[in-house]
């Protein structure tokens, strides 16, 4: 029987595939601009904006708007809390998979 607690404690914010993707891109590539993330994940402007807002409200990312060569640029970066929450989420995913493997045996 699976440990129900493990599933219940999973951070719901990361369960959406797009937000998981955003966190992965920011973890792998460091600070990234809006268009880079959009290109990497194949999203529309509206879709990405909505998911970034959720992550920002949770305190997992910071969004900075600035001008580079007179063009507006939106830079996204992970916060310490975001990095830690994502690390925990990945650990939980690993545990779920390990438990599933143990149950199969």
């Amino acid at each position, binding site marked *: 029987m699976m440990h129900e607690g493990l599933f219940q404690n999973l951070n719901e914010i990361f*369960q959406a*595939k797009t937000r998981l993707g955003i966190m992965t891109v920011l973890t792998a590539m460091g600070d990234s601009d809006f268009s880079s993330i959009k290109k990497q994940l194949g999203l529309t402007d509206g879709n990405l904006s909505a998911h970034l807002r959720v992550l920002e409200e949770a305190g997992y990312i910071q969004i900075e708007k600035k001008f580079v060569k007179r063009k507006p640029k939106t830079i996204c970066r992970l916060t310490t809390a975001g990095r830690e929450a994502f690390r925990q989420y990945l650990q939980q995913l690993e545990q779920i998979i390990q438990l599933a493997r143990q149950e199969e045996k």
Partner: protein
Amino acid sequence: MKTQEALDQIAYLQRLIAQTRLRAADGYPFFLLWGLLWIVGYVGSIWWSHRVWVGVSLVGAVISVMIGWKKKQEQPVPPLLKKIGWLMLVMFVYIVFLFSQMLLLTDSVQIINSFWPFHIGLLYILAGIFEGRSMLMIGCWLMVAAVAGLWLPFPWQELWLAAGGGGGLILTGALLRKQVINDA
């Protein structure tokens, strides 16, 4: 969330990380370009003067910037690759300085001809520490080809460096291109 969903998420994460990781293979157009230019430069310097390299280097620099710009538009540049790029640029400027000092000490055509393949090989070995085996191998090969070329008289050294150096770069570029096509 179910176990299958956890597995799907892990698979998705792995796919994304694979997309963003450093791949020497993505640099194949540079290898093909510079391989061709080395052949033009070395073979050209048999018939014309070594000044052919000025034109070859300029053409190479312009096309390299164009390829780099196009790649940047297609895919964001990973931060580590940016740092490696800056490191290579600093090293390259240092090598240009060394080259200028060497010209004051010697006018041996053999040494001048082998200088660049040797030092470019060294740069590839440095890049290979971060980018993997293919860069290390071509770096080692260029250094060996450059040293071996020191004992060859004109025009055999030029032909050897065109075939060994330029040919080596083209072969590497072709193998990396194949890898990119297979991964797609």
